[in-house]
Structure formats: structure tokens, C-alpha cells
């Protein structure tokens, strides 16, 4: 039985590693400027973690295979020095690994969170509410009008609760159900929650950030490829959570200008 354990565990360990090593399940192609740092971090961690995983499982498998139910009177081996070797090894190996990953990992995080958006970044506001995302562009005046929750009227498509009659800045705001952005242009995404917690996740952009009711949060990023991508809600927000998504279209600057003009005329 001990030998069976060793064999089966070895198979499990190698079978588990197989889809990783052969890249059967990978993240989609990165289309952001900061994503490569995240991907590198992920790959480095996968190599270290994957190696540790396989080695540990194979060591376990080997030990059980070799040292189980030995014949009567078999000598039991006691390692001198107890756990000293283990403690030193753990501190050195794990300590350096941990510090390296922790310190190096800061770079990717800092790129996303510790840099301010460029002053000419395109501002877009996203509002998350049960169970849809809506987006708002500031229009030619470059300013967002104030939000009035008591004026929200989904039936009349006033998703944000704007009051153009009284607020000048709201008059040229453009509200859409799809998000479009120009490629290679920094986007400053302002995030507003209408009701409960939600989250903004675009796999290809390597960004994820919660919407917190009552907090003004924002993200900035730059897309490097055009295309059609999904924005998914990843914070449990109620019964429609699974279906809460929107589309992000990354367009050439020209196409984007056409699109925003089109949307403006539809307001």
C-alpha cells in the first residue's frame, strides 16, 4: 500500500503540473502597458511554486514508497541536530524567495497604484449598479456634472441621476452602456457605486478594482491593442451578479472620435 501511495501521488503531482507546463490554461493576451510586469511576476511565481510543489510531492511520494511497513526490526533513522537544518533551510530558501517576490512585486503594483494619471488622460466615469455598468464621458466642456441619487430614473434612461436643467456641466455629458476608449491613450477611470459593492475586471487589461459605495475610487491604464473585451463584475452584488457585464471596445483614435460623436448625438 505504501508503494501504491508513492506511485499514485507521483502521478497526481506530474498530472497536476502537466497543464501548467504545457500552457493549457493561460491568461488571455495582455493588452495593457503595465500588464507585462504582472505576467512576469506570475510566471516567476509559477516557476518557483510549481517546482516546490512537484519536488515536495515527489519527496513525500518517495519517502512513503521507501519507508512504509518495513520488515520487523528495521532500524529507524534519527537525523542528528533535529530540525536545525530544516529551520535554516526554510529561513534561507523561503526568506529569500519571499523577500525577492515581495520586493520585486512592488514594481507591478506601483505601476498601477502609485503613479498619478497623466493630466491629459481621457476621463471616463463608470457606474456600477445592480446589475449593469453604465459609462459617462465629460463631453466638450471636459467636466462631469454632479450626481443626484434622488434623480435616478432608469425608465427614462437617467442612470446617473443627472440634472441638466440645473447643472450646466451635465448638459454635454455622454452616457453609454458600452465603454469605448482610444488605443494607446491613457484612461482615467472614475468609479462610482450606485447601490452595493461591485468590481471592475478586465482580464486582458490586467486590472481589477472594487467599487465601494461612498468612496470615490479611480484607476488609470492604457490599452495597447484594439479589440472587443468583456468587463466583468467580480464582487458579489446580488442575484444578477453572474450576468453583470459590459463590453469594452478599444478603438483607433479616429474610430473613437466617430463613436463619441455618434453617442453625443443620441443623448
Amino acid at each position, binding site marked *: *500500500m505504501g508503494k501504491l*501511495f508513492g506511485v*499514485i*501521488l507521483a502521478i497526481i503531482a506530474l498530472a497536476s503540473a502537466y497543464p501548467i507546463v504545457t500552457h493549457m*490554461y*493561460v491568461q*488571455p493576451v495582455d493588452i495593457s502597458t503595465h500588464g507585462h*510586469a504582472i505576467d512576469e*511576476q*506570475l510566471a516567476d511565481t*509559477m516557476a518557483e*511554486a510549481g517546482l516546490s510543489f512537484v519536488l515536495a*510531492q515527489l519527496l*513525500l511520494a518517495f*519517502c*512513503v514508497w521507501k*519507508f*512504509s*511497513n518495513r520488515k520487523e526490526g528495521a532500524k*529507524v*533513522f534519527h*537525523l542528528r541536530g533535529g*530540525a536545525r537544518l*530544516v*529551520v535554516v*533551510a526554510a529561513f534561507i*530558501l*523561503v*526568506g529569500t524567495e*519571499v523577500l525577492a*517576490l*515581495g520586493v520585486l*512585486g*512592488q*514594481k*507591478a503594483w506601483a505601476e*498601477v497604484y*502609485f503613479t498619478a494619471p497623466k493630466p491629459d488622460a481621457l476621463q471616463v466615469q463608470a457606474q456600477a449598479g*445592480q446589475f449593469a455598468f453604465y459609462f459617462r464621458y465629460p463631453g466638450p466642456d471636459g467636466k462631469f456634472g454632479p450626481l443626484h*441619487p434622488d434623480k*435616478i430614473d432608469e425608465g427614462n434612461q437617467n442612470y446617473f441621476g443627472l440634472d441638466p436643467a440645473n447643472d450646466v456641466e451635465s448638459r454635454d455629458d455622454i452616457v453609454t452602456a458600452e465603454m469605448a476608449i482610444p488605443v494607446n491613450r491613457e484612461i482615467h477611470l472614475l468609479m462610482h457605486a450606485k*447601490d*452595493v*459593492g461591485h*468590481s471592475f475586471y478586465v482580464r486582458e487589461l*490586467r486590472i*481589477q*478594482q*472594487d467599487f*465601494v459605495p461612498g*468612496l470615490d475610487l479611480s484607476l488609470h491604464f492604457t490599452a495597447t491593442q484594439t479589440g472587443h473585451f*468583456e468587463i466583468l463584475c*467580480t*464582487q*458579489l452584488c446580488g*442575484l444578477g*451578479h*453572474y*450576468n453583470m*457585464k459590459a463590453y469594452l471596445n478599444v478603438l483607433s483614435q479616429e474610430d473613437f472620435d466617430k463613436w463619441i460623436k455618434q453617442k453625443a448625438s443620441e443623448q
Partner: protein
Amino acid sequence: MEEALKSQAHAHAPAEGFLRKYVFSLDHKVIGKQYYGLALAAVFIGMVLSWLMRFHLVWPNAKIPGLEIIAKTGAPGGIITPEYYLSLLTMHGTLMVFFVLTNAPFAGFGNYFLPIQIGAEDMAFPRFNMMSFWTTFVAFVVLVTAFFIPDGPPISGWTAYAPLSAIGKDAGPGLGWGQNLWVISIAIFCIGQLLGSLNFIATTLDLRAKGMTLMRMPISTWAWFITSAIGLLAFAVLLPACLLLLLDRMAGTSFFIPSGLVVSDRLQNHAGGSPLLWQHLFWFFGHPEVYIAILPAVGIVSHVLTNSLRKPLLSAKVIIYSMMSIGFLSWMVWGHHMFVSGMNPFSSLLFSFPTLTITIPATIITLIWLGSLYGANIQITTASFFALGFISMFVSGGVSGFFLAQPSIDIYLHATYFVVGHFHMVMGVAAIFAIFSGTYFWFPKMTGRMMNETLGMLHFWITFIGTYCIFMPFHYLGLVGNVRRYASFVDDFMPALMPLHKFITIAALTTGAAQFIFFFNLVHSRFRGKQATANPWRGTSLEWSIPSPPPWNNFGGDHPVVYHDPHQYGVKGSTGDFVMQTSPEQILNE
């Protein structure tokens, strides 16, 4: 020796009424079994819920016969609605984390064996002990009641984030009285746990037998002791959090709810509260809670392994110090559940360092186990196999934690199946393996009968292979970006992943079915199992020095005296290759 032990067993057993003896017993052994039984009931329900969830994910339009009777609105015609899926998910997590993983390895085995392993006659406060069990039982009943109210159980997850959990029924189905029952249940559960932890700590500090120094306590006892210290402080934070949530829900306060929220077209009448405050309070409890779930398992596995290897582990002392370090560090890492929550991103970096540092004591413990295996004489039993399986699962689960501890990687992996795979590996498999190991190991002591080893081995193999088949693929799904807590998969990239989901579901249903082998073995062996001796595994610790099952006062009115630590294996003893803690004989060779 057996005869002498048996005669002690029946001396002075007090006359007690039925209720006092079997229901409101003050005997820690009965209470331990009651906790274990409660955990069995909870794990059965939790497992069925997971079957329903896995079924629904791959066959969303399937009619589940009979479900429409329990869930009139949640599953009309037997088809699970998205909100009912979330209810199943919420109750699955709540039952498993609280009523299984905090109950069985800690309150169950701990209550039964801690007093015995330190040479005491009972816990320090038997009345509080009895109250702690029945409080936990009431919490269980309150929780399960949520299934049967018209609006159904809550849909906010076991984490119950505000404002979704705080607003009330405007926010969705199940969030009215379902959520209230949930919060009340958990608050009651906190009280039960606080009473229990108090007992464990006081007993360990004050009731040790003569010669039982702290360092002579078995690793399992140390694990229960450290866990109860963590539990005392963690549940003392969850209880206030639940009270604040209840006040927001029922008294109109605004601890967690900001102003200006429009939910179901209604402007909510709250202002100024902070949803992040709930997350901070919850996870300040929640992270130590997962160590409450795993440390007793580490203790039980270390205890079983020491015995099964017929040699001491490389260093029990270092394992104990490592468990203490994990306990200490566990208070500093709660923010790693909140990396992308909107809290200050600098805090995220701060939290990641202690999180990564916990890898060190965890690695030390794992390497001690692995190093100890080398040159051992591993006794193959179901108990030892589950302990060895635990090592495998602990490595798997720990390794995936490495990814999630880094905020930059967490940006991509947060809220995906990668996280679900990680915590199921460590909690849902590893900790469960430790419960199984402890059961097969201690069943003879608790009942006086042996469990069936053939059935045990069958149970082990199916479970070991099956759980890997279920939970390893979760990591692959996460790497692709498969989001969690989704009732259905409607995203464009999901169809390619459905074959893997089907594989998981079939593995889950098969592995689940195999657990009936265990239930059957438990019940059948209780009545028909082979008679067990006092020390069937040739163990050294105090539980093996008393009859199987133990007499009402554990040591027959004697005061046990302890001469050695419990690691005297692989030495020449009068009874074989071991020397018991209570044996006054000198240790002849190293």
C-alpha cells in the same frame, strides 16, 4: 492491565438522569462527541449543497426532483434560480467554515482529548462546556431555519459584505429575514466559541497532571491550546461586528452604509457609514479563523504521524514554536483579503509582507514532516494515510497561497476560481483529511471498537484521488480568469472551459458518494467493530494509558504522573519500541 483498567471504569460512576447523562452532559467526552455529531450533520448538509451547486453550474436547466418542496421560490419546478444558487453558496460556506471546520478538529476532538492528554479529569468549567455546545447547537438551528422561511437564505456569501448584507430586502431575495437569521446565528456561534476557548485555555494552564510540563504536552494539545487563544480574540471581534450589522439592518444605524444609495429604485435612508469597516472587522476575525481551522489539523496530523512513524518528528518543539508564530502572524495579514477592495494601496503592500512571511513557519512544519519520514518505519493504516495525504494537500494549498499573497498577482487572480481552489485545498481538503485521520486514529479509544480498515482504505483512495480531481482544476480555471460566485457562466470565454467544469462536477459527485463509505463505517463499527484494546496503535500519550472507552472520570480517580514527553518512539521500552508518558522506566537508548 486491561482488567484493572476495566474495573476502574465502573467504580463510582454517578447515578444520573437521562437528560443529564446524555443530553446536558457535563462530561467533556460526551460534549466532544456531541460537537463531532453536530459537525457531521453540518458537513452532510454542506456537501449536499455543494452537489447542487456543481450540478447547476454544468446542467443549469436540470430539474432536481424534490427541491421545489424545500425551495418554493428558490427552485420552482426543481430548477435552481440564480438567487438560490447564491443561497446555496452562502450556506455552504457558512456551514463548512463555522460548523464543520471550527467544530470537529477543535471543539470535537479537542474537547474529548485535551483533558485526557494533559492528565485531567475534565475541563476546568464543565458547566460552561455544556453551555458552549448547546449554544453552538442553537446557532446551527437558527442558521438552518433560514432554508425554510419564505424568502430563503441570504445570498451575500459567508463573508456577508456590506452594504449588500446591511440594507435589507431591497438589496435582493434572502436579504430580509434570511440575512437576519444568519447574523443572529453567527453571533450566537461566537458566544459558544468564546465559552469553549475559555475552557480550553484555563484547562491547559491549570489542570495539567504532575510531571506534565507544557513541553511534555502532545503537539495536538499544543495546537488546541494555541487555537483557543486565537479563537478567544478572533470571535471577540466578530461578535461586535455582527452586532453592528444587526443594528444597521434593524435599528436604522449607519455603521456600514453610506449615503445616497439607490437600491431597487429606493433611495436608502442611511448616511456616513463605511462598507470597508465591515471588511476590516470581518477579516480581522476571518483570517485568524482560517488558522483556527488548520492548526488543530496540523496538531492532529503531527500526533498521528509521530505514532505512525515509530520515531519522533525531527523536532516537536520547533513545530510548536512554528504554530505559535503562525498564530502570532495571523493577526497581521487580514488585509490580504482586501488588496483590491479600495483600501489604501500602500496598506496592501504592508499586508503582503507578513502574509509572505507566514510561508516560513509553514514550510518549517512541512519540511519537518518530510524530513521525519526519511528513515522512518511508517505504519500503514487509514489514519496514517489520511495524515500523509494531509501533507500533500497542505503543500498544494500552501503553494497557491504564494500567488495570492502578492498584490500585483492578486489584481488578476482575485475573485477567480484560483482563490476558491486555494482555500478549498487547505480548508476543504487538508483540514477534512485531518478530521478523518483523527477519527480513524481515535475511534478505538472513543468507542472501544476498531473501524474497518478495508472500508477505510477504500474511503481514503477515492477521497484522495477524487479531491485532487475536483480542486486542482480550479486553479487552471482561475488562471484563465473564470470568475467565482457566478450562478451561471455566460461570459464569452467560458464555453471552452465547460468540459473541465463537467469533469469537476463528476469528480465531486463521485467523491461525495464515497463519503457514505465513511458514514457507514462509523455507524457499523460503533456496534459491530472488532473490540479494541487500550492501546491498539502502541501510542505513548496519556489517552493510550486508559481503557477504551475511558471511564467517566478518565483516570479512574487516580492522579496520573508523567515522566516523559510523548515522543519516545524508536527506543527500547518494556512494551516494545516505545515508552509511554506515564511509564516510570528510564529511556535506555536514544
